C-alpha cells in the first residue's frame, strides 16, 4: 500500500469495542441532532480526501460505496455460486474492515437496502466512524412505508425508493406512490431520491416535477461479453447481466436534468473495469458514482476516482453536463 494507515490496529480495536455494545441506531444525518460516537475507539487515523459534491446541504465523496458485495448480491449471470462465495468471504469482521478502509480512503457514504443486515454500519458509527448512509427502501406489500420510517430511525442520511420498486409501481399504474415516498422522506428531513434501472422512471419523475434531491440511475456501456444480445430489449437483462439497456438515451436525458445524479451499476456488476467505467460515468454526466468494492479494491478505486475526477473537471474535459453537485 502506498500509504501506511493503521487500519489493522483500528479495525481490531473498533471491533473489540463494538462487540460489547448493542446495535446502534445513532444516525449520521446533519438534519437531526447527532448522537456522539462512543469514545474508546479512534476514527480511522489517516484520510486522503476524495473529491466531494453536495446534495442539498450535505457533502459526499464522489465515489460512494455500494452494498451489493456486502449483501452477497453478485449479479453474476449464470455463475450462481458467486453470491455464496461473496457472503462467505465477507464475514462480519471483513465487512467492518472494508468500511473502515473505505473511510480511510476518503469514501464518506455507503448505499445499502434498509432491510439487509446493516449492523456493521451501526457498529462503525458506535466506534466513531462517520460513513453516511443512503438507504434503499421499497413499499410494504400492503402499501405502507414502514421501511422509510425504519431508515429514518436507523440513521439514514439519504433515502430512496429502489429501482425495482419504482418500476413495479410504474407498471402497475401507481406512479403517484413514488411521489408519496419522496414527500414522506423529505418530511422526515432526509435527502429524498428515486432509484431506477428503467429510464422511464426518471422521465416520469421529471414530468410530475417530483421534488427529489437526487436521482440514482444505472449507467453502463454495453461493451462487455455478457451484455444483452440484440434481441434483448428489457431495462434489466434477463440473465442478471444488464441494468442499462440504452446508455446513450440515459446520457441524453440526464443532460436535461438539473438534479444530482448518482450513477450506479457502472461496472455492470463486475464486467467492466473501473478504469473504463469511472471516466465513462463522469464524462457522461454522473455527479457521483456508486461502486461495490471488496476490501482489496478500495485503495486502487479511490486513487482512480481522484485521478479521473481531476481530468473530467479540468480544462478540455469531454463532459458537457454541468455538475449538479
Amino acid at each position: 500500500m502506498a500509504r501506511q494507515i493503521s487500519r489493522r490496529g483500528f479495525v481490531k480495536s473498533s471491533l473489540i469495542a463494538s462487540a460489547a455494545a448493542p446495535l446502534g441506531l445513532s444516525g449520521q444525518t446533519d438534519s437531526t441532532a447527532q448522537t456522539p460516537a462512543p469514545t474508546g475507539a479512534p476514527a480511522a487515523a489517516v484520510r486522503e480526501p476524495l473529491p466531494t459534491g453536495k446534495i442539498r446541504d450535505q457533502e459526499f465523496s464522489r465515489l460512494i460505496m455500494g452494498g451489493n458485495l456486502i449483501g452477497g448480491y453478485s449479479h453474476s449471470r449464470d455463475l450462481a455460486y458467486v453470491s455464496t462465495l461473496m457472503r462467505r468471504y465477507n464475514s462480519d469482521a471483513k465487512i467492518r474492515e472494508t468500511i473502515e478502509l473505505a473511510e480511510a480512503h476518503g469514501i464518506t457514504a455507503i448505499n445499502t437496502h434498509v432491510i439487509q443486515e446493516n449492523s456493521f454500519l451501526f457498529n462503525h458509527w458506535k466506534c466513531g466512524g462517520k460513513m453516511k448512509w443512503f438507504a434503499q427502501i421499497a413499499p410494504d406489500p400492503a402499501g405502507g412505508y414502514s421501511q422509510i420510517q425504519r431508515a429514518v430511525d436507523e440513521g439514514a442520511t439519504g433515502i430512496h425508493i429502489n429501482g425495482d420498486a419504482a418500476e413495479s409501481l410504474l407498471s402497475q399504474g401507481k406512479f403517484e406512490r413514488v411521489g408519496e415516498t419522496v414527500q414522506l422522506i423529505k418530511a422526515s428531513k432526509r435527502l429524498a431520491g428515486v432509484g431506477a434501472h428503467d429510464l422511464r422512471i426518471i422521465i416520469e419523475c421529471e414530468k410530475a416535477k417530483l421534488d427529489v434531491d437526487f436521482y440514482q440511475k444505472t449507467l453502463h456501456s454495453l461493451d462487455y461479453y455478457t451484455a444483452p444480445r440484440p434481441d434483448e430489449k428489457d431495462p434489466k437483462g434477463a440473465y442478471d447481466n444488464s441494468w442499462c439497456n440504452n446508455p446513450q438515451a440515459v446520457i441524453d436525458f440526464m443532460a436535461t436534468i438539473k438534479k444530482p445524479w448518482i450513477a450506479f451499476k457502472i461496472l455492470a456488476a463486475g464486467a467492466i473495469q473501473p478504469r473504463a467505467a469511472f471516466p465513462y460515468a463522469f464524462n457522461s454526466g454522473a455527479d457521483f458514482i456508486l461502486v461495490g468494492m471488496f476490501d482489496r479494491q478500495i485503495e486502487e478505486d479511490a486513487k482512480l476516482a481522484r485521478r479521473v475526477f481531476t481530468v473530467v473537471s479540468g480544462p478540455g474535459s469531454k463532459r458537457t453536463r454541468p455538475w449538479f453537485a
Partner: protein
Amino acid sequence: MAQKISRRGFVKSSLIATAAVPLGLRGQTSSTPATPAASGARAASAGEPMPMGKIGDQEFSRLFLGGNLIGGWSHSRDLDYVSALMRHYNTDAKIRETLEVAEAHGITAINTWVMQENSHLFNHWKAGGKMKWFAQVRLDAGGGYSQIQKAIDEGAAGIHLTGDAAESLLKEGNFDKVGETVQLIKSRKRLAGVGAHDLRVIVECEKVKMDVDFYQKTFHSHDYFTAPRPEDKDPLGAHDNSWCSDPQAVIDFMATVKKPWIAFKILAAGAVPPRAAFPYAFNNGADFILVGMFDWQIEEDAKLARRVVSVVASRGSKRTRPWFA
C-alpha cells in the same frame, strides 16, 4: 449434516501437527511403497463411501475433486474479480479444510497442476490423509519433461499432459511428444493419461493406439446463458466460457473408446448446476467426473454423485457406453 464427521477437530489437530514439519514429498501411489502417515494426526473418520471405479490397478471415487477453485482459476467469463475472490476465500487453512471434508465424504482423488502450490496436499498426507493425486503436467519450454519428474517425486498417483499442452503439440505437428509423455509416465509406474478440450487429441491418441491408462476429456452441454454463441466454433470459448465445443461429437466418439474416461469441466466452470451436469456426464459415458468444489459444496455434491451413479448403474439406465472403470 447427514453424517457427523469430526472434521473440525481433525482439521484443527492436523493443521497443528503439520505446522511443525517441512513440506512433504511423500506419495500416495500404490506402485511405490507408501510411507506411513505421520503420527499425531488421525485421518478423517470414515464417511459414507462413494461409488468407485478402477484405473489400472487402483480404485478411485467416481467423483474427483478439481483443483481450479483452490488455485483461483475461476474461468468466470467477463467477471475478472471472481478469481481474486476465490484466492482470498481459499486461504491455506480453508484449502486444508476442503481436502479433509472431501475425504470425509468419500472423495479419494484430487487433480491439480504440478506447478501450482500443492503444499496443502502434502500436509494432508503428512497428517494421515489418503487423497490420491492426479497431477497435470506440461512440457518444459525447451521440450523436456521435468514436470513429470516433479510429479513423480512429489507423489502423484496419476499424471497427464494438460489439454492445452496436448493441443499445442497437435497444432505444431509434434503429437509424437504426447506419446513420449505417456511412455515416460508409464515407465515410472504411474497411471498415464492425456487431457483434452479438443476432441481431436483423443482421436489422434486412439489412431496411434497410444497405451494410455485414462483419458481426461472436457464434457458439458451448451444449455447455459454464457455458452458459445453460434459464431464461436473453437474448442475453447473465446471468453473463458466453454471447453467442449461439440458435446454430441464427444459422446459419439467416447462411445468407441475402451479406456476410462474422466470427464472434466462438466459444470462449464459453474454455469451448469450439478443436478443437471452429473447425470448428463454419467449417462453419456463418463466413468469419473472431476468437479471443482468449495468446502460448502462438497457434502451436497457427494450425495448427488452417489444418487446419480446408483441410478445410472442400475437397470433401465440411459447410459449405453459400458463402464471402463
